[in-house]
């Protein structure tokens, strides 16, 4: 039963492509409602201060101003996922410069912004804690005085400005250093990266007559928005309806709340719809960033290349609020061992508060940072042993049915296939690079292996059969641009043997969609794919039951036929269309056909007999995924400029439901990774002010900054639990890029960089220091 161009494994163009290509697709700022007001905010001028008073009288006098809200207008509710530490708007204190302190709604945007300027807030400045070292100092001012009283989802240690500690250890690392023939040690520092989705965050809220509120927002989960807004506003979730228009990218940045609560509160205060969209600068200043991490790592091996010990100590700068940082810490600590069987490992992490923008989840979730350290050290060990880096990786690589640190079994491992695929793809590349090098333009190739995961949390789906044999797919999944609407529709179409055009995809709506956690953790294809497939199979079973009765034959004699038919095996003209079956179900027997499926990721948890684990925010994470990446650079030794010439990226995706879209995720992730490696960095000044909150000063890669040659190599080691064997992959293509660039620079000109981003200045300084 083959379904050309529609079925799983084919490059189906995205189902919402036409509306996006014509500008018809509505994003949040494209929406408006009758009587709609516009919102604006007042942002803290201090990184750390007590709020003494608000004076909103001048703002309220301005014609056109309909509402002003401050911390005084909210219940004192603290929100957060693992640690509840964040008020809906600054209350009593501000903890970063730019933190929203008040908000205004007015008849037009200019009036709202003018009113915001007329609000006077009196502060009493407190000492700023801006660096990790200051935060670790027990004498530093506390950013959260009530840390010990906060609700904590899982137990963990904390003290001072350290809000969470996590660690895992296996084997006995202290005992084996003396057995190592070679040891490498180093300190690495990564930077804050902004998600820089092209669409700034925004929200539109409409008060309802029943006292409830409807919120549209640019987000990665309608359910997370519903739950958090309901909690902050102390309303039942039944009164908070959350929807989402098209989303212009997320990458983790829209995974939690941004301004939804404030917009909802404004709308309820003035009983009118209110819209607020962040300016690019506001979006930089108040949403979230990738974690800067300081990583100390030590790795030891035997002369034959066997890795036997690794020790990691890291400090994550979480900024002013916990957000999802405890989980990022957890994952970074967990994955820092890398995809290698290292018997003795100790990984420790601390997460600190600073008076800066909160850090949060961002594509890779702490993994690109620790992979930079880990894969640098793999190359350094190979160099010391005078061994090929590939050989060292292959020698120590985890394989199918090996155990991960903590004991979880790896059911399907395509890591070795990724390395083999990479070796083939890059054959001859090193020689080409060497041959093309000149005395001041040095070329080199660098590699990085990577591992990640997909899965976590729960999801559900419904598939409804319509009268003409079309099907309606209903999930709570938000497509943030990666293409899940298409992938999930393909899965339904394939499993029912109908064209994708016969599947309608329902937009997520908390009033009518089955629950899905969120678009994050590379989980949608794997988790929602499973549940969508389950619901479609459920429909297929009902179709067969009806068809068996209608055709008077046993169900096992029936087969699905292309185009939406159920027929008797071996009898070409004995068949029923889905429409005929739907007609019977709707009018006579059984009722409308609908399939449902619901699931939670419940893979094995960590084995306490195997590893000592402390402060983990989660204990089962999902399915492991693997990859291998390579980068060719040209380093200009006169200017320090690093130019990326070619990138190869091999990923084990289990099964590519839509290979072209897999390639799209690979290319996009690679380029975001190049931004992280080379140019992007949020920089704060000494008052805690973000110095570069514009696209002029914060440089993401443009087309001429990146190579035209990005080769995606798809490896398919089917995951037994995955839909059609598929695993998640959308984060993976970013994870190894900083490490591969670092290794390529070292290969090109022999210098080691350990602080991201690798700017021309840093490269030049390293070259100078090395006397090159």
């Amino acid at each position: 039963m083959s379904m050309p161009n529609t079925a799983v494994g084919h490059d189906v163009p995205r189902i919402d492509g036409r509306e996006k290509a014509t500008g018809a697709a509505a994003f949040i700022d494209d929406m408006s409602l009758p009587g709609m007001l516009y919102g604006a905010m007042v942002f803290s001028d201090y990184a750390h201060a007590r709020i003494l008073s608000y004076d909103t009288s001048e703002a309220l006098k301005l014609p056109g101003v309909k509402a002003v809200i401050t911390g005084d207008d909210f219940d004192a509710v603290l929100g957060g996922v693992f640690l509840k530490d964040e008020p809906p708007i600054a209350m009593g204190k501000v903890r970063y410069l730019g933190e929203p302190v008040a908000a205004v709604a007015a008849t037009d945007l200019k009036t709202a912004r003018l009113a915001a300027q007329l609000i006077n807030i009196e502060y009493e400045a407190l000492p700023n804690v801006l660096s990790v070292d200051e935060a670790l100092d027990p004498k530093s001012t506390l950013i959260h005085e009530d840390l010990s009283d906060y609700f904590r989802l899982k137990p963990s240690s904390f003290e001072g400005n350290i809000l969470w500690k996590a660690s895992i250890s296996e084997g006995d690392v202290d005992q084996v250093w003396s057995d190592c023939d070679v040891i490498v040690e180093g300190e690495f520092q990564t930077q804050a990266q902004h998600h820089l989705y092209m669409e700034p965050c925004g929200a539109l809220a409409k008060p309802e007559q029943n006292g409830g509120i409807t919120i549209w927002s640019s987000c990665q989960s309608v359910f997370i928005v519903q739950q958090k807004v309901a909690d902050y506003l102390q309303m039942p979730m039944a009164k908070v309806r959350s929807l989402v228009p098209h989303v212009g990218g997320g990458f983790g940045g829209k995974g939690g709340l941004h301004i939804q609560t404030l917009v909802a509160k404004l709308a309820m205060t003035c009983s009118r719809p209110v819209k607020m969209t962040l300016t690019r600068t506001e979006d930089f200043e108040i949403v979230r960033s990738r974690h800067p991490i300081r990583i100390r790592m030590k790795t030891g091996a035997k002369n034959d290349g066997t890795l036997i010990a690794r020790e990691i100590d890291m400090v994550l700068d979480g900024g002013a609020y916990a957000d999802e940082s405890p989980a990022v810490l957890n994952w970074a600590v967990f994955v820092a061992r890398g995809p290698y069987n290292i018997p003795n490992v100790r990984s420790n992490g601390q997460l600190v508060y600073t008076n800066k923008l909160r850090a949060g989840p961002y594509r890779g979730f702490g993994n690109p940072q620790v992979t930079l350290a880990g894969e640098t050290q793999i190359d350094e060990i190979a160099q010391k042993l005078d061994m090929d880096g590939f050989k060292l990786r292959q020698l120590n690589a985890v394989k199918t049915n090996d155990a991960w640190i903590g004991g979880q079994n790896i059911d399907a491992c395509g890591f070795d296939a990724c390395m083999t695929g990479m070796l083939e793809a890059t054959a001859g590349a090193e020689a080409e690079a060497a041959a093309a090098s000149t005395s001041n333009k040095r070329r080199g190739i660098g590699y990085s292996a990577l591992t990640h995961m997909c899965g976590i949390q729960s999801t559900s789906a419904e598939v409804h059969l319509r009268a003409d044999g079309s099907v309606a797919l209903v999930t709570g999944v938000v497509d943030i641009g990666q293409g899940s609407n298409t992938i999930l529709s393909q899965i339904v179409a394939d499993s029912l043997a109908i064209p994708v055009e016969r599947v309608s995809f329902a937009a997520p709506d908390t009033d009518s969609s089955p629950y899905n956690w969120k678009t994050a953790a590379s989980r949608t294809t794997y988790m929602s794919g499973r549940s969508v497939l389950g619901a479609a199979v459920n429909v297929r079973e009902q179709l067969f039951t009806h068809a068996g009765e209608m055709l008077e034959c046993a169900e096992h004699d029936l087969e699905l036929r292309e185009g939406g038919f159920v027929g008797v095996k071996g009898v070409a003209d004995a068949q029923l269309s889905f429409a005929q079956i739907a007609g019977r179900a709707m009018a006579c027997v059984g009722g409308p056909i609908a399939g449902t499926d619901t699931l939670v990721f419940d893979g094995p948890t960590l084995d306490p007999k195997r590893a000592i684990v402390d402060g983990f925010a989660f204990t089962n994470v999902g399915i492991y995924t693997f990859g291998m990446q390579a980068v060719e650079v040209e380093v200009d030794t006169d200017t320090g400029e690093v130019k990326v010439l070619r990138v190869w990226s091999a990923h084990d995706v289990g099964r590519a439901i839509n290979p072209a879209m897999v390639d799209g995720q690979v290319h996009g992730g690679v380029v975001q990774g190049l931004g992280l490696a080379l140019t992007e960095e949020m920089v704060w000044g000494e008052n805690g002010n973000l110095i570069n909150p514009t696209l002029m000063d914060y440089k993401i890669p443009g087309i001429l900054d990146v190579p035209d040659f990005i080769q995606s190599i798809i490896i398919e080691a089917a995951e037994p639990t995955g839909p059609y064997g598929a695993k998640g992959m959308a984060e993976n293509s970013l994870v190894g890029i900083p490490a591969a660039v670092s290794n390529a620079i070292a290969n090109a000109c022999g210098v080691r960089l350990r602080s991201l981003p690798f700017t021309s200045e840093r490269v030049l300084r390293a070259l100078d220091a090395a006397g090159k």
Partner: protein
Amino acid sequence: MSTDKQVITLNINGESIELLLDGGETLLETVREQLGMTGSKRGCNQGVCGACTMLVDGEPVRGCLALSSACSDRSITTIEGIADGLNLSPIQEAMVEHGGLQCGFCTSGMVLTLSAFLAENPKPTREQVRHALSGNLCRCTGYTKIVHAAMHVAEAYSA
């Protein structure tokens, strides 16, 4: 910013529209807020991202920088003027078919920039396409498939 209003006639997508506008109003504000044509996107409002790209007399301009009052006798094309009903233009079709768009937020700007470029350079090299797109940022695609899309259109022209 001037608050003086003036009557201006704009020719947008082949239609003449008379509007009462602030002197300081940008083309992006006019099309999005006054005319409700929201296909042109605001990614930065600072002239960097290119999401607001429109054509003025066939040349790509940044809608967030161009003043509407300066465009009164010129012909303006926005993304809404590119397709013919349900028939997409070749570059729109190619962007959909070849994965040149993901979230779609940069897409209007990409399509307009490429429409103008391909009209003048029907047989470009990949490198020329890349240079033409140097003022349009995309965070999702890594750009490669946008270039593929443009090259497919160019090949179809020259076939």
